[in-house]
């Protein structure tokens, strides 16, 4: 009976295998077929990228790294940055600040045309800023509370009126995509009066169209599946002959597919969320390299300072000494480096290299624990540690801390939490977990941007701050630094704030996480990928215009 059964199962499986392989034919091959969305082969000079979609295509509301990358390629901005983060003129040729720091005047180029052929004028810049302020989504927080309004005084002059001084204002303008006012307003949805006489401010139309003047123009888009953009031949900057003719971003997330597509060249650059296992496999492919771009991201374990027992400074320090950093940067994020403090070395004004206070040291952890007011009743507390369910490698970080803490009698419960839930939890100190793993990303290249976004009281309750510091002294330090127009003084103030934070220890600064993407290094030259330190500006690394295909 038994033998018979086993034989039957085997024969059935074999039959099934034969059946299926018979009708299978060859595995999906590429290349020979011409496809609708640009080519795949290198001679097409086309860049194919995968990403997590849906896209938020309106520059006033997009905030994911792929949204922001596309903005850099489809729109122009007043200023731009070099790979290392240096701010350079772009649409603006030069600018002045009034002595009181409350008026910025920008003079702009007169040789730029939008994709529809109309001319880019100062009024378009003013419109874009006012629209971003009104809508208040995406990266508008950069200007909210600082910028009052913008106006064009003549076709090549735009003036920004400030509510308060804002020393880093020019750096933040790398985030202001210039929209074609006439085109946007011609396409508003008049049935929607959310914004009064501006109707929907063109939000609906812009979610599937572009109104830019950037090096690439939108050809086909489906926000959930893909977007294809092709070269804008009348772009105001020179085109190199071997620059990409266009790019396609597709929603592909499965490691297996990404590996296959990279090995047969169907994919040019991967997204930055691949696990270390996939990256290792990609690195072994011929003609494929994995980037190691340090773009200022620090992987943080953010401790809720308003909840027992992480409200105790010594308890927090004990945890910081308990974390095995070496395992993190050798096994989990292999080849990365330890973070020295709150601000990554990629930022101007970072003193992370000098600080580097916390390292794996169980003795010190015990000492700090003994000093904490919870030393005698550790058993009463179970710490909640939440991490983003989409990022598998973070689970390992959680496990490292959990097992080390268990040895000192500290109980940690780990929960993989969907990103949306993390955001919801951040709303109040009570709902925020004791520890949340997060890697906040930033928008302009000075240390002040991290300090403000991650530690200022105004950001408590958002996904950029789970610490709930609400520290007035620190707020004052950050605010005065951001208002200080003297560069050296400002840097000095940033340093003070970082030392203050390091002593407060609200966060375990785990590692500096490089942006790691697989790319076809044998096919094209990608300047950003070759640079060790990149501008800490999310989305900036995927700038296609300066990529050069090899002959």
């Amino acid at each position, binding site marked *: 009976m038994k033998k018979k059964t086993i034989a039957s199962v085997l024969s059935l499986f074999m039959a099934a295998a034969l059946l299926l392989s018979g009708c299978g034919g060859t595995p999906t091959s590429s290349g020979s077929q011409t496809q609708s969305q640009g080519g795949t082969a290198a001679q097409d000079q086309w860049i194919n990228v995968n990403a997590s979609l849906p896209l938020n295509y309106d520059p006033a509301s997009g905030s994911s790294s792929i949204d922001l990358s596309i903005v850099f390629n489809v729109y122009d901005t007043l200023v731009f940055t070099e790979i290392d983060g240096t701010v350079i003129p772009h649409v603006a040729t030069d600018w002045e600040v009034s002595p009181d720091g409350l008026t910025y005047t920008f003079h702009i180029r007169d040789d730029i045309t939008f994709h529809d052929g109309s001319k880019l004028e100062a009024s378009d810049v003013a419109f874009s800023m006012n629209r971003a302020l009104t809508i208040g989504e995406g990266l508008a927080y950069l200007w909210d509370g600082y910028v009052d309004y913008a106006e064009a005084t003549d076709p090549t002059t735009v003036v920004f009126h400030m509510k308060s001084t804002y020393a880093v204002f020019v750096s933040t303008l790398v985030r202001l995509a210039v929209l074609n006012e006439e085109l946007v307003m011609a396409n508003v949805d008049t049935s929607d009066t959310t914004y009064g006489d501006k109707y929907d401010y063109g939000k609906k139309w812009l979610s599937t169209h572009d109104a830019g003047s950037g090096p690439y123009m939108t050809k086909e888009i489906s926000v959930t599946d893909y977007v294809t953009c092709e070269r804008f031949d009348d772009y105001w900057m020179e085109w190199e002959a071997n620059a990409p003719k266009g790019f396609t971003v597709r929603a592909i997330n499965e*490691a*297996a597919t990404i590996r296959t597509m990279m090995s047969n060249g169907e994919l040019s650059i991967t997204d930055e969320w691949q*696990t270390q*296992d996939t990256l290792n496999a990609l690195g072994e492919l011929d003609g494929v390299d994995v980037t190691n771009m340090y773009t200022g991201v620090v992987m943080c374990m953010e401790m809720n300072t308003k909840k027992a027992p992480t409200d105790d400074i010594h308890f927090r320090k004990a945890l910081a000494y308990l974390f095995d950093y070496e*395992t993190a940067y*050798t*096994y*989990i994020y292999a080849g990365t480096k330890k973070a020295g403090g709150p601000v990554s070395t990629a930022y101007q004004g970072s003193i992370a290299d000098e600080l580097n206070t916390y390292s794996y040291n169980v003795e010190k952890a015990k000492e700090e624990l003994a000093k904490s007011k919870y030393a005698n009743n550790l058993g009463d507390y179970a710490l909640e540690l939440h991490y983003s*369910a989409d990022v*598998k490698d973070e*689970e*390992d970080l*959680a*496990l*490292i801390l*959990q*097992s080390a*803490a*268990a040895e000192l009698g500290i109980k*940690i*419960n*780990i*929960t*993989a*939490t*969907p990103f949306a*839930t993390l955001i919801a939890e951040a709303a109040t100190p009570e709902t925020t977990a004791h520890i949340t793993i997060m890697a906040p990303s930033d928008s302009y290249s000075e240390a002040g941007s991290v300090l403000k976004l991650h530690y200022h009281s105004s950001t408590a309750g958002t996904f950029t701050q789970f610490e709930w510091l609400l520290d007035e002294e620190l707020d004052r330090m950050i605010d005065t630094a951001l208002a200080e127009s003297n560069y050296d003084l400002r840097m000095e103030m940033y340093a003070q704030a970082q030392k203050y934070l390091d002593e407060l220890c609200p966060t375990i600064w785990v590692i500096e996480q490089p942006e790691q993407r697989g790319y076809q290094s044998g096919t094209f030259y990608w300047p950003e990928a070759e640079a060790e330190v990149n501008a800490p500006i999310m989305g900036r690394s995927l700038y296609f215009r300066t990529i050069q295909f090899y002959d």
Partner: protein
Amino acid sequence: MGKTERKTRTLTRGQARMDKVKRSWYRFSRNKMSVVGLVGVIFVVLVAIFQDVLAPYPEHAQAYTNYAAMKLAPCAEYLFGTDGTGRDVLSRVIFSFRNALIMGVGVICVAAPIGVVFGLLAGYYKGKWISTVIMRVVDIFLSLPSLVLALAVSALFSPTLFHSMMAITFSWWAWYARLVYGSAASVRNEYFVKSAELIGASRAHIILREILPNCWSTILTKMTMDMGVVILMGSTLSFVGLGAQPPQPDLGTMIADGYKLLPECWWLTIFPALAIMLIVLAFNLFGDGISDMLNSKEA
């Protein structure tokens, strides 16, 4: 069913009981697969009880990391290999049995009583408005595949074993209500219910003492048959990330993590998958046997 006892009154109580057990065992074991199922269930329960003794590395089921030994293929030291954190897969599979059982038993022990109460009420008051209301609510709960409803409900809570049990229970009780409603409604018009009503027995007495005993075999059969289904559903919720959290070992979660490392680390997927198949198959076969035992007529 209960009426057959009278015939055996002449025997002593002990003999009668022995006799009954023997007959039940005969009905159960007529199908050899049921016996296999019983052995399987006993095995699963024993493993769940003695997990600490059986697992070669019990500490690997708790907070433990050993990255130096990660992703080792099955070998003498680690029979099922190790996972991406360097933990022994065999130990984690063994430890996950208890959660699977808790999931099955927990859901059924909560869903069944709730469903039975509503089913009895609806069956007893058949034709009255209360019955209509109950059965329409039941219809609403059954108008979606249970898995879909459980998924939607589990979005309400943070993901834990307990919460996914609640979510499944929420979508499961209605099946019992419908089942019991059917048998209660048919028993309701039997002569012994009518006569109990005539002699003025209370409603509670009629429902609990007269109607319920006649639904027992249906309920018990459904309960044993459901064990496997509920465990499967629980593993599916864990598979999509709505179940037990790390480092708690859970078969669905282990498969979800493991299949991303296919084909190299096949052991991370295959062994937990086989374990689920073992548990569920054992309960299904056992359930078949119970159903034969309770429902077959005198041989």
